[in-house]
C-alpha cells in the first residue's frame, strides 16, 4: 500500500478522534464507565511505548549497567519528575546516552 494512503488513513483516524466528543456533544449518551477509562489512556499508552525502548533496545531483555539507553532513560525520568520540562528531559537523556560507556 502506498505510504501516502497510509498517511491519509492515519490522518482521518486522528482527526476523527479529536472531533469525537466535540461532534457528539449533546447528541450521543456515552456509557457511564467510558469517561472513567479516559484518564488512564495517556499513561497506559505512553508507558507501553517507552519501557521496551529502554529495557529491550535490541529486542531482548537487557538489564545491565552497560545498557546506555536504560541509564539515559532513568536519568530522563528523574529529570522529568523534577523539572517537568520537555527540552531539559531531551537534553539530559541525550547527554547521558552520549557519555555513558557502552
Amino acid at each position, binding site marked *: 500500500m502506498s*505510504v501516502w494512503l497510509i498517511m491519509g488513513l492515519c490522518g482521518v483516524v486522528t482527526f476523527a478522534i479529536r472531533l469525537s*466528543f466535540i461532534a457528539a456533544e449533546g447528541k450521543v449518551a456515552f456509557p457511564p464507565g467510558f469517561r472513567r477509562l479516559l484518564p488512564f489512556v495517556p499513561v497506559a499508552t505512553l508507558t507501553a511505548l517507552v519501557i521496551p525502548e529502554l529495557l529491550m533496545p535490541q529486542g531482548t531483555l537487557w538489564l545491565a549497567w552497560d545498557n546506555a539507553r536504560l541509564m539515559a532513560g532513568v536519568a530522563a525520568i528523574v529529570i522529568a519528575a523534577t523539572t517537568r520540562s520537555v527540552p531539559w*528531559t*531531551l537534553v539530559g537523556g541525550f547527554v547521558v546516552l552520549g557519555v555513558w560507556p557502552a
Partner: protein
Amino acid sequence: MVASAFREFRAGALALAPLLVGVMPFGMIYGALALSQGLSPAAALAMSTILFAGSAQFLFCQLLGAGVPAPVMVAEVGLLNLRHTLYSAALAPRIAHLPRRWKLALAYLLTDEAYAVIARRETVADAGPDRHWFYLGAGLALWSGWQLSTAAGVVVGARLPTDWPLDFALPLTFIAIVVPLIRNRTLLAVAVVSGIVALLAAGLPFKLGLLAAALAGMAVGWRLAGRMR
C-alpha cells in the same frame, strides 16, 4: 467585538509561544528522522499537515522503518492518539454553541500543547464570549511552529550523520510527557502494569504487544478507580 476577538487570538498565540521552545527542536528531529526512515521530503512535510501529531508522526516513521503492515500502523497511530478524546471531551461543552466550521477547525488543532494552554486559560480568566479566538490563536501558533520546524528538520536532516541515535528522542519525549502525569498510586499502577505487559508481549508480531500493554494498563486503572468509589 472585533477588537476583543483579536485580543483573545493574540493572547492565545502568546500563551502558547513558550511551549515552542520544546516543540520546535522536536519538529526538527522528526523531519530528520522521517528522511532517515525512507520518507520523501514531500511526504515528511505533508505528514505534519495531515496528522499534526508529533508523537504519532515519530511512531509512524518507526513502524514504517520496521516494515509493519498498513492496517496495524493505522491502528497503532490511532491508539497513540486516543488520549486526544480526553481533550475533545473537555473542550466539547465550551464550543457547543459555535458553528460547524469552528468545531472542525478547533478539532483539527487540538493537541497536547494547545489543550494545556486552553485548560490554563479556563482556570485563571473569565470566560468571555470570544474565547474561541483564544483557542484558535493557541492552535495556529503551535501549527505554524510545527510546520516551520519540520521543514527545517527536512532541510538539515539530509546532512545529519546517519549513526546518530535520533530515534531515542521519541522515548525521551514520552518520558517528559508521561512522568508528570503519574500523580497518584492508581496512575502508577497503570504505568507499572502497562510497562510489564509491554515487556512480556514484546515478542508478538507487528508490535501488537503495544496494544496488549495499553489495554492491560487501562483495565487495571479502571478496576482500581471503580474500587475506590
